[in-house]
């Protein structure tokens, strides 16, 4: 019967694809994955699940998080695929995530899976802080490349460094949280006080410092490795530097939004996100992925990045986020007034 109806539809519309369209489920998926990767992700997913159509809602980490929190009482998303784990922890603490153990989750590195059982979220890949260093502009300004975070406080780099504002950028926050974890609370703030002297300005987004460094607008941009590698591949005279003390990182993760009307399809999608195939797909941009043994080196990625990743305490980051941001704002945002 159903077949007959769809056949009629197909005839009426005059297209054969209508048979697929008749049984299609649509999922609204919120994501902060780079725009250029989305089509590829959906395509790979549809190879094994042709009956589920993904409607992407893509924006920066801060905006997607704000959107999800704003829609707390009236969720619009079915699945979050590719959002910072720190953000997902916030959502989890609001009771907004539907716990689900995807098939094959036990294959993943435990670091990448939420501690609860069933987990509220599962990780995909890590994105790691790095310093983008424009060799051409730096040479013009007579700078030598920094090798550590502490180097960046050298007066030589005055007004030559740009970093993202942690209040609006997830990358900015992971930098700040990693400094606080590595140097201790007092040491971390002392470090940022010194670094602030060299910062030309704080940007709203995390990829912008690297893109600005790539464009020569500033010699040094504190950003993340993935962005630096991409800009380098585009032909920018960049060096991606991994500071010696270690680098902060956050992971992109996936979760089902509680209250979704399409739970079954959502679970299928999350099942897919932990497969080896999906992890191979993440690996084209990210050097560190959740599925052990999958990762192959990514072109232009700095060496030694994996070893430099710090032991990141996500719970510390999520639970102290409000207090850290407030402190940061009172220290550095207030200083930036009209001269």
């Amino acid at each position, binding site marked *: 019967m159903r077949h007959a109806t769809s056949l009629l539809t197909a005839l009426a519309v005059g297209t054969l694809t209508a048979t697929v369209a008749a049984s299609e489920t649509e999922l609204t998926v919120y994501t902060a994955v780079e725009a250029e990767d989305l089509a590829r992700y959906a395509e790979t997913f549809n190879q094994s699940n042709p009956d589920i159509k993904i409607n992407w809602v893509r924006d920066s980490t801060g905006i997607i998080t704000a959107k999800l929190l704003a829609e707390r009482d009236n969720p619009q998303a079915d699945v979050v695929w590719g959002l910072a784990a720190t953000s997902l922890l916030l959502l989890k603490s609001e009771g907004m995530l539907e716990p689900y153990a995807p098939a094959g989750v036990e294959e993943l590195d435990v670091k990448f899976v939420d501690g609860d059982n069933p987990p509220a979220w599962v990780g995909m890949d890590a994105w790691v802080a790095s310093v983008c260093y424009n060799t051409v502009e730096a040479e013009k300004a007579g700078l030598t490349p920094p090798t550590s975070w502490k180097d960046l406080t050298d007066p030589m780099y005055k007004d030559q460094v740009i970093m993202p*504002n942690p209040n*609006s950028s997830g990358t900015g926050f992971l930098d700040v949280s990693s400094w606080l974890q590595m140097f201790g609370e007092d040491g971390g703030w002392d470090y940022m006080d010194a670094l602030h002297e060299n910062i*030309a300005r704080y940007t709203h987004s995390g990829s912008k410092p690297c893109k600005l460094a790539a464009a020569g607008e500033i010699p040094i941009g504190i950003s993340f490795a993935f962005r630096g590698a991409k800009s380098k591949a585009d032909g920018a005279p960049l060096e991606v530097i991994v500071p010696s003390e270690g680098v902060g990182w956050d992971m992109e993760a996936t979760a089902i939004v509680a209250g979704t009307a399409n739970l079954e399809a959502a679970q299928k999608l999350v099942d897919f996100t932990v497969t080896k195939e999906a992890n191979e797909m993440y690996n084209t941009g990210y050097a560190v992925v959740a599925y052990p043994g999958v990762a192959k080196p990514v072109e232009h990625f700095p060496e030694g990045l994996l070893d430099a990743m710090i032991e990141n305490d996500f719970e510390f980051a999520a639970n102290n986020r409000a207090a850290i941001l407030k402190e940061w704002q009172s220290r550095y945002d*207030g200083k930036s007034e009209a001269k």
Partner: protein
Amino acid sequence: MSEISINPGTLPAGPDIKPKLSRDDILMRGSMIVIALYLVATLVLPLYTMLSKSFSTYRMELSQYEFQVSDDAGQFDGTILSGDALNEQIGAFSGTELSTGSDGRLSVTELFPDFSFRSPVMYQIRNTSDTGRFLVGSTLQDNTDWVTLDSNQFRRVQLRPVQSRGLENFVNYFSTPALFNSIKNSLWISVISTIVTVTLAFWFAYALNRSCMRFKGVFRLIAMAPILVPSLLPGIALVYLFGNQGMIKELLFGASIYGPIGIVIGSVFFTFPHAFLIISTALAISDARLYEAAVSLRSTPWRTFWTVTVPGARYGLISAAFVVFNLVITDFGLPKVIGGQFNVLAVDIYKQVIGQQNFEMGAVVSVVLVIPAILAFAIDRMVQSKQVALLSARSVPYQPTPNRKADRFFLVYCCLIGLFIVGLLAVCQFAALIKFWPYDLSLSLKNYDFNKMDGGGWGSYINSIKLALLTAVIGTSVVFFGAYLVEKSNGFRTGRSIFQMFAMLPMAIPGMVLGLSYIFFFNSPSNPLNGIYGTMAILVICTVTHFYTVSHLTAVTALKQMDREFESVSSSLKQPTMKLFARVTVPVCLPAVLDISIYLFVNAMTTVSAVVFLYSPKTTLASIAVLNMDDAGDIAPAAAMGMMIFYTNATARIIHLIASKGILKRTQGWRSR
């Protein structure tokens, strides 16, 4: 005298004479109420919701939690401790420490001075009511069951705040220098930009109206160009001109374009047409007899200028100043792109809401931003109401006389202004075509591959055109019909003046504030209109409301030119008013109707501030894409998309021009005999 006076008590009270409402009257009042209700639902209620949000605070209610502490063997003796009582004993948290934001967390271990995460002591914690919430790690507990934890787990317990009402948000705002400094910054750049823009626009308008220089038509066109682009586009151009890799950054002598300098230059660019239009109208008509008198009294040109020209244009100047001030202080796109570390109110709203998800503080900044905007608007209205006709029936229109020296001077001046406007646009177009500034200067169309960037790709461009068309059609219908009802219905004075007030209100409300208030109002699940959230409908409604006032005023002005006799004649001929409206009023006012629709179209294409909080993945817009691409550092594609908006608006303008010429020829033939 006393004999003729009639004692009302002696005569029977006559019936109140009240004209009976005709079917037409009822229909018109009904429609008017419907449109007024529309304005209430799309403006008054959202603003009210936002205001109440600014008073919504979060507090840690320690009385909502109960604890039990075991002995070293892990045995509980059943003593229940209330969080409140514990805090009173120990004084761990002061009242201000307990006031927090919606994302506030409080670690409980400070209530237990003997706490050590290594001790064998066990703890139990529970909420005393259903509103209580706490986290163990990141897992939410919101029921009233006891949770038993060892001390290492107990240190991971974080209390969550509950909602209450009060002034804490405002106290918090004014005790955070990072936030309230923005008030000063906003006022400062607005005043500077206003002075510069009004001065430049005055001389430009003066040249076009009071001199005999050549190419006036061209300059008039150029002066209007900035209206066709989003306000953040000049910011992008300035980055290419004066940024660290800027083409002519030497002109700034080492100063940074990121900050007040950039905001002021960009603001002058995008507010110039508004100031120019208003001042030009004020300078267009003048009584030549005053100038003749000045000449015969041997007044110097300088004195004539200050005693005749400037006073004659004073209302235009004041109005222009307030309009520019309002545009600058409420603008969000430009300071976002080029403001650097210079915080202003409109960007603060964005940072609070988007960056920190602190909706309450966003509402507080919105309330702060509304105050100067409403003040500027109210003062302008007051001054305008004092304006009297300058041109009496006996006036002789002023005709400029050629003056070679002055005309040449004005031509040079206008060329400089024209170069500034065209130059910024040209820089954007140039930057959009360069492959990788400044390292690879070959031409390429790679920056037009929007689908590979943030912001929604080419789909957002299509969405923008849809939004602009829908806004133009729906907005024009609603606005014009509403204006007609207000202007031409009989009686119902209070109703009409309330409607007028509602129609004027949108002008005073900054776009950011409107957008934010829409989130609060429409995204609440208890709102029956909730379904439109995240759709094109909410964008159309928001944009129509945002630009309601100017459209309304245009319609009212056109309608005022039509004698009310039309209504009298039609009713004495027993024709329904709606027939008159469709057959006479609309055709006669067609020029105004077309003006309103192009105004709405262009603004819907360029608006950023109101819709930045409201777009959804399916309804991304070109103007927002410019913002988001710039935000991600894809500055050249942002410039490319900005120029796409410019070309679209320019095309719409040309079509509008041709269409109005054709339609006017057919419908307005009666104007010239």
